[in-house]
């Protein structure tokens, strides 16, 4: 008998393949031409537009929307990609509801912003569908740069450096590039292998050689790279995962949300992917929402996100919280894990209610248990394997305004570095700005 949502334990095939492919379809389907025209016409072409200011990569949003309005989506794409080479991915995964669209004057006026993210996707998809790369490489400078980590920050940095004529070697510990774009984002946000296609398209700039499956610490070391190359950019992300510090954390069925998300993204057949009947996700950020929603989409019967503070302090935006709720995920704030109970495998998670006063979180002493055959930890990632000698601040590589680290000739950006939110778009901006700084230093 096939498995259903009611089957106990952690099993595969709770839903049939048709249901699974429907569940994991594009969260925001791309605009057809007419839809794009209607959406673009809503833009007021504001002066010194608030959306632009809110964009971490400073895309000239009114300009690109006007270019869509006037029937030149490829010109719009160039406006976007000139600022943000991963504009296609950002169009899919940016929390626009807390960035450009939050400050759109039509959001302020009507509660309905211009759908900037979807318009950006329309333009970038249009250009990328041609298969052509819109930028040309400058004459070779003879300088070489190592970029360690092929996630958003590394890709952005490598592209900008290559565009300026430098020779770039792009390393990644994983066997394929993309970083969190490839391994760390909910599948319904980036369908049809977009992350990999985007990297292929980006590399068309030329001048970037790739070496994947090489990790800093085991296969590479900073001292050697610094000798070998004129500059080094570190974008190694956050490889470690915080522990629950609750009894029973080692039980079967307790796993990292990031691994679950990565496995899901790399799965060829979702019906072979196992998920619990009762899933509890602990944490309050985007990773928690991605893991919880996807558990539900895989067929888990009950999924709960438990967060120790209030809803307004969750890292996940209100839009993400609502997305989770609309898929039937229960969001349980003010609950901190005490223990994972079970006979070998997890069966229940015990929580204690919390209150916060003056920013201080205290347990109330009252506890309760939730049935849980699968428990995902989504309580933050940590810097793992940073090279010795780099100054660290707050658990991240300390960087200056343009990503320069405490070691001359070494820059860093993305989630592994201080400054900015841990967002794809922020990482792209940091990679780009570091590339400009490296370029200036190398050519100065």
């Amino acid at each position, binding site marked *: 008998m096939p498995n259903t949502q009611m089957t106990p334990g952690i099993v595969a095939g709770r839903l049939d393949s048709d249901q699974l492919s429907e569940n994991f379809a594009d969260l925001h389907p791309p605009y057809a031409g007419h839809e794009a025209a209607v959406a673009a016409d809503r833009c*007021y*072409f*504001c*002066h*010194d*537009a*608030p959306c632009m200011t809110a964009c971490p990569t400073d895309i000239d949003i009114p300009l690109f929307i006007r270019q869509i309005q006037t029937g030149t989506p490829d010109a719009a794409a160039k406006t976007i990609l000139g600022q943000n080479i991963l504009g296609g991915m950002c169009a899919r995964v940016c929390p626009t509801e807390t960035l450009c669209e939050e400050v759109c*004057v*039509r959001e302020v006026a009507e509660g309905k912003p211009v759908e900037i993210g979807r318009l950006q996707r329309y333009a970038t998809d249009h250009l990328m569908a041609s298969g052509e790369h819109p930028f040309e490489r400058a004459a070779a400078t003879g300088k070489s740069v190592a970029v360690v980590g092929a996630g958003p920050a590394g890709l952005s940095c490598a592209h900008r450096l290559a565009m300026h004529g430098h020779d770039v070697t792009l390393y990644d510990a994983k066997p394929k590039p993309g970083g969190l774009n490839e391994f760390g984002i909910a599948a319904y946000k980036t369908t049809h292998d977009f992350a990999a296609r985007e990297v292929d398209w980006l590399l068309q700039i030329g001048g970037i050689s790739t070496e994947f499956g090489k990790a800093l610490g085991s296969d590479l070391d900073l001292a050697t790279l610094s000798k070998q190359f004129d500059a080094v950019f570190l974008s190694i992300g956050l490889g470690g995962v915080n522990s629950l510090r609750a009894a029973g954390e080692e039980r079967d069925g307790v796993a990292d949300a990031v691994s679950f998300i990565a496995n899901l993204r790399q799965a060829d057949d979702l019906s072979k992917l196992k998920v619990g009947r009762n899933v509890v996700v602990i944490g309050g950020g985007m990773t928690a929402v991605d893991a919880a929603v996807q558990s539900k989409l895989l067929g888990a019967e009950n999924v709960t996100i438990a967060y120790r503070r209030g809803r307004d302090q969750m890292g996940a935006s209100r839009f993400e919280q609502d997305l989770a709720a609309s898929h039937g995920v229960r969001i349980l704030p003010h609950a901190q894990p005490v223990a994972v109970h079970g006979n070998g495998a997890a069966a229940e998670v015990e929580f204690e209610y919390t209150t916060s006063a003056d920013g201080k979180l205290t347990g109330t002493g009252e506890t309760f248990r939730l049935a849980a055959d699968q428990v995902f930890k989504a309580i933050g990632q940590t810097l793992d394997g940073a090279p010795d000698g780099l100054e660290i601040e707050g658990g991240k590589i300390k960087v200056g305004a343009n990503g320069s680290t405490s070691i001359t000739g070494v820059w860093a950006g993305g989630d592994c570095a201080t400054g900015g939110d841990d967002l794809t778009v922020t990482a792209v901006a940091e990679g780009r700005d570091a590339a400009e700084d490296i370029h200036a230093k190398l050519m100065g």
Partner: protein
Amino acid sequence: MADLTSTFIGIKSPNPFWLASAPPTDKEYNVRRAFEAGWGGVVWKTLGAEGPPVVNVNGPRYGAIYGADRRLLGLNNIELITDRPLQTNLREIKAVKRDYPDRAMVVSLMVPCEEDAWKAILPVVEETGADGIELNFGCPHGMSERGMGAAVGQVPEYIEMVTRWCKQTTRMPVIVKLTPNITDVRKPAEAAKRGGADAVSLINTINSITSVNLDTMSPEPSIDGKGSHGGYCGPAVKPIAMSMVSEIARNPETHGLPISGIGGVTTWRDAAEFISLGCGNVQVCTAVMTYGFKIVSEMVSGLSDWMDEKGYSSVDEVVGRAIPNVTDWQYLNLNYVAKAKISQADCIKCGRCYAACEDTSHQAISMSEDRTFEVIDAECVACNLCVNVCPVEGCITMEPMATGETDPRTGKPVEPDYANWTTHPNNPGAVAAE
């Protein structure tokens, strides 16, 4: 409830909304649907002389321009007069008029500029029971190349001559439809009056090319790679039409001559504006070609509600009410001083007023770090551009300054008295105030 019934040059209709001579009034089927929808009257699409009908192109006959969200703002056409046999049209006109005796049935006519031609067609039209005729002296394309339409309308002497032939031949009231493709619209209106016209209607369509296909380099609408100028109409032409209407209403030679207003009438408000400028009724075409006949319900309710609100009991009370306030620039009060005012409660902080004023006007709007936009009274000349570009209606207003207040721009107090250019010291031809 306000009485919307209309009597225009003796022709009665339940409301002042007629359909203009155009595709919507080309045949019985459409006109019956229009009357069922509530239109007060129609001007039947222009009939030509007995004989083989004209032929139309077999490709696109319309071109358009759009506003945001593909709102149709202007339409042009290269369609000719009716391409159906005269007898078919006459039979249908008679049948419709018989079934809708309370609606206005006016027949548009265009025959060669010969007395016999007009004398031949008028009796057969009269025989249908139609309430009146409209002389099409305006059609700017196709027919004008054959010496009809605008070719007549651009020569006042011809207008007068043909109008006189018609008045001598028929008992039916005669409306002369004027072309805007002329320098001074008062001249053809005067000619129509001299010829005995009961009314003029205007405007007919404006010579236009709506767009060029940049792939084929052919103007649109394009017929096998070539385009011809067509007649432009729709909301975009309303300001031109209203100016021309007002000129005829103001002109001492034609003041009081009944006018049927045409040109971009789309809503009840447009209609009320035309009526206020001296029109006894209005004719509509593009709006129904865009939205269908049902819009007349909004026009009826809107005009009626507005009249109730203002205390007007009949359309006639509104006719020409704005005309005393249409004047020449030289008579505008130069002592009137206003300043723009931005309502911070309504402002959505788009900054378009700032861009417009800063880049193209008087640098009279300030912008703060937090996007607060405020008018700098010492720079504001009250040009109204900020009002016009603001997406929020009513957010920016023009506030008149009170007499005696000091205008921070000029440093001078606002004068109590009216004074215009004719007496202004900067005017070399100024006459001393008496």
